[in-house]
């Protein structure tokens, strides 16, 4: 019996995750308890959203480096609109944030899909451009918690239900629903499979009559919209939004995607893996702060090396597998 490669990846990831938890549990007193879950589940919820968006883009052989600026803009503008119109019905607000994010994503998608520009250049440029739009329109002032409606700032800490001491927050539920929807869409729907087809072999996809431009555009819009939703959660969690909100999130999202086993050349990957990747990165991030042996400043260095190791391991593993069956196989 052979385990499919995708399932194997997920199992390996879960193993690494469990090992990491056990390692920190042996290093930090009182580490393994419900508070650990409550603490990281909120931030994983935000990172998982943008990582899933990033995964759509990466599947099509592109990358979205502007995502941190989109989160910042969505959080800031949504907050600004709520301050101006505090009576906006609550269900509309996350949709509004997603709309704002989608517009930014559409700009990226248009430039990449219409002009066939390399996405790394376009989004490196819009990373700066979107941030300067935020700085310019905010005039340096911040959104503060006390000016926002209370329902919003309470939303992030409201529990959907609790299991013993484990608190399952609404934002976690929303995030999991998004991940599962994306998973079902990508694996069970024709439109979802198109993302894989475009990424794994653009020429073959073109011969098969698939519209690459439209799919890539859609990927960037999805990435923007999910970044917008993440911006809403960001606003709800922190309340205070300055012009640097969301700075550096693009690197975490790329990290989660790559660690989660999505091929950086596009064409293969699984958003459930991305969710575990996001959780792993956040777990290491939060735990390093509490580990007495090293300073908290190791976080970035560890994240960078982790991404590198994940990609290297994946490359070596894939090559081994391909060498073992030179006649080609089911993949």
């Amino acid at each position: 019996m052979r385990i499919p490669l995708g399932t194997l990846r997920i199992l390996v990831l879960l193993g690494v995750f469990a090992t990491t938890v056990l390692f920190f549990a042996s290093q930090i007193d009182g580490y393994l308890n419900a508070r650990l879950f409550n603490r990281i589940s909120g931030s994983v919820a935000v990172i998982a959203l943008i990582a899933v968006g990033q995964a759509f883009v990466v599947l099509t052989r592109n990358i979205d480096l502007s995502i941190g600026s989109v989160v910042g803009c969505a959080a800031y503008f949504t907050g600004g609109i709520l301050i101006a119109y505090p009576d906006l019905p609550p269900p509309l607000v996350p949709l509004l944030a997603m709309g704002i994010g989608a517009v930014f994503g559409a700009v990226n998608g248009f430039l990449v899909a219409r002009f066939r520009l390399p996405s790394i250049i376009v989004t490196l440029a819009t990373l700066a451009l979107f941030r300067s739009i935020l700085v310019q329109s905010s005039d340096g002032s911040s959104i503060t918690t006390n000016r926002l409606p209370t329902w919003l700032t309470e939303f992030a800490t409201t529990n959907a239900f609790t299991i013993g001491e484990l608190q399952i927050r609404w934002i976690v539920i929303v995030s999991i629903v998004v991940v599962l929807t994306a998973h079902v869409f990508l694996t069970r729907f024709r439109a979802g499979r198109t993302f894989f087809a475009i990424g794994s072999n653009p020429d073959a996809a073109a011969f098969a009559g698939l519209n690459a431009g439209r799919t890539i555009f859609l990927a960037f819009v999805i990435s923007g919209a999910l970044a917008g939703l993440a911006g809403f959660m960001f606003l709800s969690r922190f309340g205070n939004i300055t012009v640097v909100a969301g700075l550096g999130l693009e690197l975490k999202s790329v990290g989660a995607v790559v660690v989660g086993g999505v091929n950086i050349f596009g064409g293969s990957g699984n958003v459930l893996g991305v969710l575990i990747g996001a959780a792993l990165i956040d777990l290491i991030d939060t735990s390093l702060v509490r580990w007495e042996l090293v300073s908290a400043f190791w976080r970035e260095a560890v994240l960078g090396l982790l991404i590198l190791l994940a990609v290297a391991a994946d490359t070596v593993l894939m090559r081994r597998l391909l060498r073992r069956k030179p006649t080609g196989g089911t993949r």
Partner: protein
Amino acid sequence: MTALRSWEGFLFVVLILIYAVNTWNSPVFLTVGNQINMFQLSVEKIIVALVMTFVIINGEIDLSVASVMGLAACAFGWMVQAGVPAGGAVMIALAIGVLCGAFNAFWIVGFGIPSLVVTLATMIAYRGFARVLVEDRGISDFPDWFDALGQKGLIGPVPLAMILFAVLSVVAFLILQRTAFGRKVYFIGASRAVAEYSGLNVRAVKAKIFIASGLISALAGLLFAARVGAVRGDIANGFELDIITMVLLGGVSIFGGAGTMSGTILAILIVLALRNGMALVNITGHIQTGVLGILLILSVTVPIIRETGGRLIARVR
């Protein structure tokens, strides 16, 4: 007329236009002091842009340059604070740059992982090491001779920055356009497979370029430290955007194989004059960066539009 049709000719016209507009807007712009200042304030970016030209023509990218700058500068600051003589600390910081470049090359050349991914990861990691070294402190109090290198004139009013830019530009130009190594860089960038079948040592060329990129970035980081007389964990953060913009605006193809050193040098002058001109009329740094972002998109869009336009004209004829 034909000279004007080339990308370099176009850049030259743009450069003259920007100089004209800036002179019109501000009487300060054309003064010797301001022109020197302009180079001094950006030397660290422009020398890295020169080596980035090699990297991109070779069909690769190095996103970690700004983090190498930061790491070298922070390592220097950390060593000086720990009592290492500044001269020795400079040498060690440069060696760290070489190591960073070699580490990138190890994964890119040795494992065949795309440079985009490797340098994205090391961009985070090197920046992380810089933060580990200085944490959230700022380190200053460098020896006077070190600060003077970045702040005062070396020969008369001409600072080290300008001399370095002039010398390195000539060296980079000669290596890229007049040596066999330069031809190899183009050849590999245009078609790696053909280069390999032709018996070129593709790996050695790529490794050399990435190591050079690390070394020059470390030098740039030290120059930056000397200019501001202090280092912090976020020093040179985000500079890769400016550097890559300069190179691509210079007409270097992001897909490799095409571009010239003179194009990059003209683009450097354009970006410098543009930023300086905007600063003189009180446009803030964030907006300047936004304008550079637009410029970057335009610089990759224009060749594509020109190509489609040319094809349309050819069809009409």
